[in-house]
């Protein structure tokens, strides 16, 4: 891991040793990360793992207790004002004005950033996010999917260099979710850097790079394939009858760290490959089951990381 924060032109976010605690409880501990310009960086981790706190520190909404770094080449402690002009932040909870219409919200943002023609900028954005016909509807009356589009529109309106999206697709239907991701890929193709936090594994797989954070610690990062390879997790996929019974029997056996049903199959994983082999060997004789050795899924890796980090940090 590169340990010196640099202002290399191809790095959008470069932070080192960020820590933040609230009321004596450490929420983020010694977190370091680098995000390349123009990439989509997925930020994963369980609830309360410090994702939102990290994002807020990146855009100057929170001051880190310790650690330093740069965002778009600006110091996150000293240059919060400059960072704010270049960063679009989409909050986890809808935070535009519910009692303002779609158009009024966008015009407000355009004026705040000093865009020369706020009305025109708002009109263009309404076209772009497909909200035409709803310009005069109050933001509070929009459905979840439309609210999310409006929020994305508002934070991309001032042409930022970096988007920070905090669980943007929570509670949004699959079609809207797919449209949203297509939009994000289009923005990234234009050179925008996107840092997006999510709980969804399919969304993680749409990112160029991902980072997994739990209990304030960055546990793994890299491309999806790298993260899976780093995990050193050995996984067997079982299909067949009475998988529930098999799951009960296998869990707790030496070498078996995790047993998880996936639809009609069962994933049996462990870090100690040899121990896992010997534990499952007796069951592989059974004709009723079909055993296949394969790569763990991203979810297997994350559940495993989460379970381990619990032992280490709690």
């Amino acid at each position: 891991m590169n340990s010196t924060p640099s202002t290399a032109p191809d790095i959008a976010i470069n932070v080192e040793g960020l820590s933040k605690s609230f009321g004596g409880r450490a929420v983020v501990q010694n977190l370091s990360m680098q995000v390349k310009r123009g990439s989509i960086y997925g930020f994963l981790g369980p609830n309360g793992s410090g994702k939102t706190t990290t994002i807020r520190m990146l855009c100057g909404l929170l001051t880190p207790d310790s650690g330093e770094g740069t965002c778009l080449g600006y110091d996150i402690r000293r240059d919060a004002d400059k960072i704010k002009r270049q960063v679009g932040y989409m909050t986890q909870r809808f935070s535009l004005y519910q009692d303002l219409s779609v158009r009024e919200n966008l015009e407000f943002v355009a004026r705040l950033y000093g865009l020369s023609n706020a009305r025109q900028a708002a009109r263009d954005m309404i076209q772009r996010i497909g909200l035409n016909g709803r310009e005069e509807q109050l933001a509070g009356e929009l459905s979840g999917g439309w609210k999310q589009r409006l929020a994305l529109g508002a934070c991309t309106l001032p042409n930022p260099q970096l988007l920070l999206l905090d669980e943007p697709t929570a509670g949004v239907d699959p079609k809207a979710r797919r449209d949203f991701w297509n939009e994000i890929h289009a923005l990234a193709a234009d050179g925008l850097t996107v840092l997006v936090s999510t709980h969804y594994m399919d969304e993680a797989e749409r990112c160029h790079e991902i980072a997994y954070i739990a209990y304030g610690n960055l546990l793994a990062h890299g491309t999806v394939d790298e993260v899976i390879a780093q995990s050193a997790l050995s996984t067997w996929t079982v299909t067949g009858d009475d998988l529930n019974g098999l799951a009960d029997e296998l869990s707790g056996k030496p070498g078996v760290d995790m047993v998880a049903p996936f639809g009609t199959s069962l994933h049996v994983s462990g870090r100690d490959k040899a121990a896992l082999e010997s534990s499952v060997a007796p069951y592989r004789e059974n004709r009723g089951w079909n055993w296949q050795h394969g790569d763990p899924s991203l979810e297997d890796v994350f559940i495993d990381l989460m379970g381990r980090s619990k032992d280490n940090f709690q």
Partner: protein
Amino acid sequence: MSTTDTNSARRNVREPSFGFWWRSYAMLVKEFIQLRRDRVSFAMIVMLPVMQLVLFGFAINTTPRHLPTAVLLQEDSDLARSILKAMENTAYFRFTHEVHSVAEFDDLLQSGKVLFGVEIPRGFERAVRRGDHPALLVAADATDPVAAGSALGTLNGIVQTALAHDLQAGDPPSTPFEIRAHSRYNPAASSRLNIVPGLVGTILTMTMLIFTALSVTREIERGTMESLLSMPIKPVEVMFGKIIPYVIVGFVQATLIIGIGVLLFGVPILGSLATLALLTTLFITTNLAIGYTFSTIVQNQLQAMQLSMMFFLPSILLSGFMFPFAGMPRWAQYIGECLPLTHFVRIVRAIMLKGATIQNLQYDTIALIALMLLAMTIAVTRFRRTLD
């Protein structure tokens, strides 16, 4: 890598031209729209002043003492001195100024520095001894009839007792001279004339304070503060954006109250309407700034309401609106001087009932400006720019 040239990206981050004005304007437009959508608040702007005016159609009776009095002493005689001594002994009058011209005398009354003026004419003692039945003029500022009335009522009796020592047996009996009491500004001693201008200030204090006291906490409670803070707006811009719409609202309210006062209660406006409008706007802005300061201190809307009430109550009781200011103990007067309503009650009564000019009201105007700037400074420094 990306298509974006980083050098140009960093150059983009210049302050946009007129950034301050655009951002303040953005905030202001937003606040106006939100106010228009908030029908309850909108109704309050009109209903509150009308209801209060109709309800507070009565006076509060007290007997204040030690009222500041000026003396225009055109003769330095024993008789004159014992009359003044006797007046002071009643505890109603306290001689604070001795003046030497009628102009000074009038100016003190007009600016509200004194509530009474006593004029001892030249050759008074000689005229009394000759039995010419001369007149002693006591001018009273009757804009507050309660304060003036009871003091004036004691005049005749006390002067008689005072004279008992100085007049020899051979002097003419009973009333050797006349006391001519002159109730200035409010000859009919109508308490409405006093209450209505004071109500302008009271109603404005209440509505203005609450409007801005809720403004920042509302953004926090609705979660909109998070995205507002993530955008490049400065505390002073947020403040102006939140105050200016309500200056206009307050101005409309003040016009409404004064209009009703003039049309329904027959209160005159003797002074300049422009001065009244100017100083009323100053008072409105001061209250909005104080409310906004509260809003940057408290945690939620309930606390904001409580703090506003804690400020509002002393404003009513200690400003001279309800009880004559001059009759209050010294410590209460000091508290009163720190409240904008105290200064505005003086200003609005002086302009409407006495025709005072801005020169007469310099002290109170400067006090209002000072309070406004103090509140704004606290608000801008207290405003939290992060969510820490």
